[in-house]
C-alpha cells in the first residue's frame, strides 16, 4: 500500500461493494422471501407462488451468485489498487 489515501480508497471501494451485495442479500431473503412474500404469491413462477419460491428456492440461488460476484469484483478491486496476492 503506497500511501494512506490509497489505502482509504481501497477500503472505501471494498465497503461500497459490500453494501451493494448486502442490499441484494436482504431484498431477496428478508424482502421477497418474508416481508413481501404475501403480495408476491399472486405472481406464479410455473407452479410456484413467487414469494414461496423466494423463501424455499430463489434466495439460495441468489446467495450463490452474490458470493461469486463478490469474489470476482474483489479480485478486480485488489488489482486496481495493486494489493492482490502474488
Amino acid at each position, binding site marked *: 500500500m503506497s500511501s494512506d489515501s490509497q489505502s482509504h480508497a481501497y477500503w472505501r471501494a471494498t465497503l461500497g461493494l459490500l453494501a451493494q451485495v448486502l442490499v441484494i442479500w436482504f431484498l431477496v431473503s428478508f424482502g421477497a422471501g418474508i*416481508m413481501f412474500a404475501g403480495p408476491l404469491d399472486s405472481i406464479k413462477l410455473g*407452479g410456484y407462488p413467487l414469494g*414461496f*419460491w423466494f*423463501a424455499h428456492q430463489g434466495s439460495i440461488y441468489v446467495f450463490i451468485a452474490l458470493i461469486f460476484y463478490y469474489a470476482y469484483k474483489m479480485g478486480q478491486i485488489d488489482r486496481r489498487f495493486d494489493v492482490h496476492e502474488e
Partner: protein
Amino acid sequence: MDLQTTTYIVVGLSFALYIGIAIWARAGSTSEFYVAGGGVHPITNGMATAADWMSAASFISMAGLISNMGYGGGLFLMGWTGGYVLLAMLLAPYLRKFGKFTVPQFIGDRFYSQSARTVAVICLLIASITYIIGQMTGVGVAFSRFLGVSSATGIYVGMAIVFAYAVFGGMKGITYTQVAQYIVLIIAYTVPAVFISLQLTGNPLPQLGLGSDMAGTSVPLLAKLDSVVQELGFDKYTTAVPGSKLNMFLYTLSLMIGTAGLPHVIMRFFTVPSVKDARASAGWALVFIALLYTVAPAVAAMAKMNLIRTINPGIVMQNADPYGPDAAIKYDERPDWMKRWEATGLLKFEDKNGDGRIQYYNDKTKNADVKAKAEAAGWKGNELNVNADIMVMANPEIALLPNWVIALVAAGGLAAALSTAAGLLMAISSAVSHDLIKGVFKPDISEKGELMAGKVSMAVAIVVAGWLGLNPPGFAAGTVALAFGIAASSLFPAIMMGIFSKKMNKEGAMAGMLSGLFVTLFYVFAHKGLFFIKGTEYTGLIGGPNSFFGVTPEAFGAVGAAVNFIVAYLVDKVTKEPPEHIQHMVESVRVPRGSSIITGAH
C-alpha cells in the same frame, strides 16, 4: 438380498472408505494437524465445508420440519445458507489473511488481551459441545434404526471411526474424509428425491418438480397440496407461518449470523492457500450445500403428499371426499413401511373412534367446516402421529424404492453426523491445545509437544462427546438453538468489529461479548430452565413466554447480537483507543497482499 444385509454392506463400504483415507492422511506437523497444511484447493475445501456444515439435523430432520411448517420452514433454508454470504464477505477472507490457527487466537491478538481470548474459548466450547451432543445421538439413532443394533453400540462404532481419522489425521484427515462423506450424503439425499419427483410430477429434478404439475394432470403440485392439506384442516402449505412474521424474520437472521459465527465452519477457511481462495471457497461451499438445501423443500412437500396419499388415497388421486366412508385406509391393510416404523415408535396409531381405519387430519383446526365434516364422518380426533424425522428416513420406502436406496440413506445419515462431529471435535481440540495449553498455560511448548497435546485433547473430546451422546442430558433437543444463539450473540459481532472497526478496543469487545452472551442465555434459560434444568424456567420473571415482541428463544440470537454491538460501541466511546500497532494490524488484515500459508508462527 434382504434389506438388513444390503444396509450392512453399503454402510460397511462407506466406513472402509473413511478408514482408508485416515491411513493415507496422517498429520505430521501442527500445520497439518490444525489447517491440513494450508494447501487445500478451494473447491475441495468447499466440499469439505458442506459436509462439515450439514449435520444430522440438516440431513435427517430439516425436510420433516419444513414438511410440518410449510412456507414458514423457509427460515431454515434461508437462514442456514444466507450466513455464507456474510461469512464470505465479512469474516473468512480477513481471518485467512490474519493467518493463525484458531478463532480465539484472532480475538485474543486483535483485542490484545488473554482474557478476551479465554472468553472466546469458553463461547467456542459451549457452542461446539452442545452442538456435538446432537451429532452423537444422531449417529446412535441412525445405527439403531437402520442396522438393528443398540444406540449405544452405534455410538461406540461412530467414536472409533472418528477416532481413527481425527486423532491421527487432524484437520488433514478430517478434510479428506469430509469430501468422501459429502459425496456419500449428497447421493443418498438426492437419489430418492429424484425418484419421488419423477413419480409425482414426471420431472426428474426435484427443484423443478416442486414447481411442476402433478403427473398426468394440469394442476400444480403445490396447488394440489394446498387444497389437500386445507381440506384436512391444516394451514395452507405455501403460506403457513408458525408464529409471527417478525419471529420468522429474526429467526432467519439469527441462523444467518450464527452460521457465520460458528468456529468449526470459520476454521475450514484457514486451510486454503490464499485470501482469494477463501472468498471463492465460500461460494463453492454454498454450491455444494445448495445441492441439498434446494432439494429439501421438494422432499418436504412431496413426502407430505405421499403420506396423505398413503392414508387417504382418493383425496390426492381422484379429488374424492376425504370424509367419505371408505376414504381412509384400513389399519390392517397398511403398507409394510408403516409397520416397520411403528416398531421404532416414530409412527404411532391409535384407533380413537374404533372403526379400524386411520384418520389423519388436524383435529385442532379452527375451520368450522372441517370440524363439522369430521364430526359428521364420526371421526374422534387425529389417529396418526408421525415423527418429523421419518419424512427423510422412510421416504424411499414410502415411494416403494429398492433396498439399496434405503441402505444408501442410512449411510448418508451417518456420513452427515460423523462429518459434522469431526469438524466440531477439531474446533474443540484446537481451542484446548492451541489457545489454552500453548496460548495461556505453557507458551514455551515445542511443536512436537503441541501436536501431541492436540491429539490428546482430540481423544479426550471424543470420549466426552461419546459419553454425552450415550447419556444425553434432558436438554439435548434445545441445544442447537443455544449453539447458534451463542455464535450469533458473542463470536460473530466480536470478530466483525475486530475487522471493520480499527478503533474498537478490548474493553468494548469484552463488554459486548459478555453482554450479548448474557442477554441471550438469560432469555433462553427463562424458557428452557436455568442451564436447561427442568423446573427452573422463569418465564414469569420476563412477563410470560416469548414476551419480547413474541420472539421465541431460538430466534433471539439476532437480538443478542444487536445488544453486543450496541454495548461494545458505547463502552468503546468512553475507554481509550487501542494501541497504534493494533490499528496497523487491522489495516494489514484488510488487504490480501502478503498472505502466506498458515504455519502458526507467532
